[in-house]
């Protein structure tokens, strides 16, 4: 069946999964549903000691069986040890047919590959997959469909019951003997535990894995003891050097600085740029350079940001420190400065992933955004974005909060260089749709800026602004005239992955990679 972004979703996939096709970013507005609920083991006896000596013990106590769904968060990013540690024990116990439901996965999880190949792991649900797991999915080694969801979509899927988590493993920088977890004060700080909150609330069994046991009670807790079954203390839950990278820096590359400047100029010319505006940005060099130059203009004009949202890095924290942001609302910390900021600054707050981006709660923070500055692997002439499938057809990126923020923000800006090497980032049709064009308002490249024709209001406002405006078709034509028109990537027949829209419908599928033949 063809969905509303023109992608053909095989009926077989729809039948097997029971999912529907994507019908528009706001199709489910006002829909009423019954929330799912976990099974809960009542801990009445005060003598129960939640601390267990090993992960293996925890798996046994949680009655691990073949076919279960295990969940993890990715706050430790490429420095995570928890997924590999747990799965190694699962593997040793001879358990099979496991589905991993992680908020995201990366190259740190390459050791999972043999477990996919031998049937220990048959399903992966994640915002993104990189490295060997991405390769395994693209080459058809995973038995079941890989399901890729955005941050908001993952929470929705759990809260609506599309996904049922049997055991949640939550890596906690600090934890007390009864399960109160915090994301700071330990040796592997990650700042916040936003993505793990829904796991703690909805999984049948919840295990805290920590490398820093602290005195009871560990308050204020990001995850409360009342949702935690067991606590396991290990030597290391992650590599601090890779959890929080060195300060995210603005780019020095002239091309990216140009795009950053276009972005800043665009933002300040919209009517949304006024005192109290809300803003989210990524950690790309251009986004950061744009944020910094925006900060200068905010200072000059006496305009304060009311809300800074999202994955947080140093530059936004600096603006907070400088008094240019009222409140910073945090779902993930990318660098040390961000972690220090949430520890020390009373205007820097942790929220849950549901509060951040779940489309089916009573209104997430993304809905309050004026601006979001995003990147993308590809954008097509209909403004659809691809952030997950590389130009070689391999699954290689992550949805993250891309579709969520795009749907929520009044002005969604995507910054992308026209060509990435020889590959045109602006094309006729993206390889895979992850964010629908109806939610993307502006695309900024080094060759010019395109405004979505749906936004006649923005086009009118920008009439007299001296920026290099072009249509997406013009940008695409320039790209093709320099690099040549690319052949579309060829795939095999078999569907290996589902790109699930944040509302649970299928926006696109990923097929098996095909060996290129001349």
């Amino acid at each position, binding site marked *: 069946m063809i969905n509303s972004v023109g992608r053909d979703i095989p009926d077989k996939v729809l039948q097997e999964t029971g999912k529907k096709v994507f019908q528009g970013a706001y199709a489910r507005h006002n829909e009423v549903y019954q929330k799912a609920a976990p099974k809960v083991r009542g801990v009445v006896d005060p003598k129960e000691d939640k601390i267990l000596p090993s992960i293996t013990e925890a798996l046994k106590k949680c009655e691990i069986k073949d076919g279960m769904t295990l969940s993890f968060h990715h706050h430790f990013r490429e420095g995570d040890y928890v997924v590999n540690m747990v799965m190694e024990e699962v593997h040793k116990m001879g358990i099979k047919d496991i589905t991993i439901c992680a908020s995201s996965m990366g190259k740190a999880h390459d050791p999972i590959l043999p477990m996919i190949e031998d049937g220990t792991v048959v399903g992966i649900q994640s915002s993104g997959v990189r490295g060997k797991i991405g390769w395994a999915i693209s080459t058809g080694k995973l038995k079941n469909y890989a399901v890729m969801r955005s941050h908001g979509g993952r929470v929705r899927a759990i809260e609506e019951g599309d996904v049922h988590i049997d055991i949640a493993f939550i890596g906690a920088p600090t934890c007390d003997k009864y399960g109160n977890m915090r994301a700071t004060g330990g040796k592997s700080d990650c700042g916040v535990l936003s993505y793990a909150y829904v796991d703690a609330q909805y999984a049948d069994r919840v295990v805290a894995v920590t490398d820093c046991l602290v005195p009871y009670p560990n308050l204020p807790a990001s995850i409360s003891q009342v949702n935690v079954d067991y606590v396991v203390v290990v030597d290391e839950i992650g590599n601090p050097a890779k959890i929080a990278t060195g300060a995210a820096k603005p780019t020095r590359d002239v091309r990216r600085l140009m795009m950053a400047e276009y972005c800043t100029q665009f933002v300040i010319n919209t009517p949304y740029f006024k005192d109290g505006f809300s803003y989210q940005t990524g950690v790309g060099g251009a986004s950061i350079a744009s944020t910094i130059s925006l900060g200068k203009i905010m200072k000059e004009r006496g305009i304060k940001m009311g809300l800074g949202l999202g994955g947080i890095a140093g530059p936004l924290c600096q603006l907070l420190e400088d008094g240019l942001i009222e409140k910073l609302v945090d779902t993930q910390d990318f660098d040390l400065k961000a972690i220090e900021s949430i520890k020390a600054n009373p205007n820097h707050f942790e929220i849950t992933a549901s509060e951040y981006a779940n489309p089916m709660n009573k209104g997430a923070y993304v809905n309050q955004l004026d601006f979001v500055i995003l990147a993308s692997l590809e954008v097509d002439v209909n403004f659809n974005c691809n952030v997950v499938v590389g*130009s*070689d*057809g391999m699954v290689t990126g992550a949805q993250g909060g891309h579709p969520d923020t795009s749907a929520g923000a009044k002005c969604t800006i995507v910054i992308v260089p026209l060509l990435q*090497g*020889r*590959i045109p980032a602006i094309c006729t049709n993206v390889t895979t749709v992850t964010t629908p064009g109806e939610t993307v308002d502006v695309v900024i490249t080094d060759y010019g800026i395109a405004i979505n024709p749906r936004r006649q209001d923005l086009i009118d406002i920008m009439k007299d602004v001296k920026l290099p405006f072009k249509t997406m078709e013009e940008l695409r034509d320039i790209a093709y005239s*320099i*690099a*040549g028109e*690319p*052949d*579309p*990537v*060829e795939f095999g027949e078999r569907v290996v992955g589902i790109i699930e829209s944040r509302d649970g419908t299928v926006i696109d599928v990923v097929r098996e990679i095909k060996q*290129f033949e*001349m």
Partner: protein
Amino acid sequence: MEVKGTAMAGTLESSDAQVTVEPGTNGIELSVESSVLNQYGRKIRQTVLDTLARLEVANAKVTVVDKGALDCTLKARVEGAVFRSNGITENLPWGGAIK
């Protein structure tokens, strides 16, 4: 033109291509490795063959290791290798066989 010996032009840097030519007897035997094979594999092949045709090379073993080079760079590297294999560095047919 003939390919008189083994010769190479270009580097493995991003946006470049390394082209090696060797004498052949069986028409053009072309092998292409590319970082953008899926999208541009066919175009790369066509550009290399067209360039060889313009140089009137009928027999050669040609190896291309491409790192996302544009057409103009591919042509330059093929010409570079072919002329080098003939030891020719001046009085080149600019605008003629080289186009």
